[in-house]
């Protein structure tokens, strides 16, 4: 096992402890909130699109990994399914696939806000357990 992987594993365990105390879903929303802030901070449409694509793709990969895990509860699987559908819809709309009209360049800031706000509805769809796992995976994708 490489030193990088060992370091990444230690970081993951520390982050797991931190996020378990801090509230995993807050960190998940912060993930999209940070992406939206980066989108609004840049003026180039191509850069905005790239930031949105990257954040949605990373989340999508994380969900694929989590969905493959055994021993998830029915509630967690339903939550993942809804979450994946929501992410896929946003990827499709950004790109103009699957019946969507491509988000216009001038609408990318508003679309970034829409992604954040859609995650911040007062319904509490995703269970905390899954959120924690997703965060671990996101970090794994970024670090390893």
């Amino acid at each position, binding site marked *: 096992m490489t030193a990088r992987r060992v370091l990444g594993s230690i970081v993951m365990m520390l982050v797991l402890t931190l996020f378990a105390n801090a*509230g995993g*879903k*807050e960190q998940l*929303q*912060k993930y999209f*909130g940070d992406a*939206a*802030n980066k989108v*609004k901070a840049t003026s180039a449409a191509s850069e905005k699109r790239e930031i949105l694509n990257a954040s949605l793709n990373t989340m999508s990969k994380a969900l694929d990994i989590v969905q493959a895990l055994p021993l998830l509860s*029915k509630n967690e*699987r*339903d939550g993942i*399914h*809804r979450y994946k559908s929501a992410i896929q*819809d*946003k990827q499709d*709309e950004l790109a103009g696939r699957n019946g969507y009209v491509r*988000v216009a360049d001038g*609408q990318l800031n*508003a*679309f970034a*806000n*829409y992604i*954040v*706000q*859609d995650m*911040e*509805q*007062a*319904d*509490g769809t995703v*269970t*905390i357990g899954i959120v924690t796992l997703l965060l671990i995976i996101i970090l794994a994708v970024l670090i390893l």
Partner: protein
Amino acid sequence: MLLMSIYCLALSMLLSSCSADLSVQHVTRQAEEGALAVPYSIVCVIHGDGDYFYHDTAGQESKADYDALAGAEMIALQNPHAEVFIFHQLPRRHFLFFFPLHNGEFYYYRNGRLIANESYRRDQEQSNFGSEAALYHRFRMDKQRKMANLFFYCGHEIPEFNGAGYDASYPDRSFTVQDFASGLKEFTRDSERFDIMILSTCFGGTPYTVGTLGSFARFIIASPENLHLSYFDLRSLKRLDLSMQDGDISAFAKRFAHHAFDRLTCDLQTAVSVAVYDVDSVQEFLQSVHGVYSDTLSALKGEIQTSTAVIEHCDCADLPAYVLPTMNEGVDLFYRPARFGRLKNKQSHSGWECWRNIEP
């Protein structure tokens, strides 16, 4: 010796947290003697035991329950002829891992002044506002005739079934619409209904929720669809003595809903829906759909446990069984679709939210 000192410190902190706050009672008696008339009453229950983190459009991070608390305190200060009861329900906490701390904060305002501020322990077993109702009855001015009684709740969607984990720090405890109704009964007891109940939650406008809670309010303001954590704006509740001067509760409810809608549509890209339900006028529709909605809930309770079916909320108008001539009676709806997503072209909504199965 050191262990004994720590034990004594812990015991003294535990005992001090249990003792009655006699200074509050002294202030209360003094305040009663000098109190002006309070023809208006507002009860605010703010749920904070969950994930309430959100961003505003400037990217600033906020906690929805603390924002709601600030809003409630603001309207309490700006209502010189009202008594305002604010309950902030907090997560469970412990001292030294063993000793439970208070998990609720109560504020009582009268004539625009803070009269009492107490920490309290929320119900330990079933969640049904027992502790909150006890504080309410202890402080309210019973003999005052009320021009208007308002009840305001903000939090996550109140589940119609499978309410386990609504309080994040009590994962085994369940809280559903039925528990909410039981709690409201503790507030109203044998007295009249609240004039207006404001549900600042997602999916508050379902036939079951309005039907169940309608026993406790003349008008219910709710969002039939998703509601962003920025909630309904409370500024319309300032100076009730002026805004409700004509005594027209229905008109006031619509103005509140319209204002809340305007504020939400300024900032949000997601769908916005704010409905006013005249409880007496919607009864014919509710009675007509009661059977089919109850059957749906019963089926969903069973399916949730056993099958892989995935369910989602939908506009009742999408389901033929609910499309009746009485569907829109007694409902005033302010609605704007989401600016993105599959439903961005949905230009109307019935004002009622239902359930449907979707493919897993």
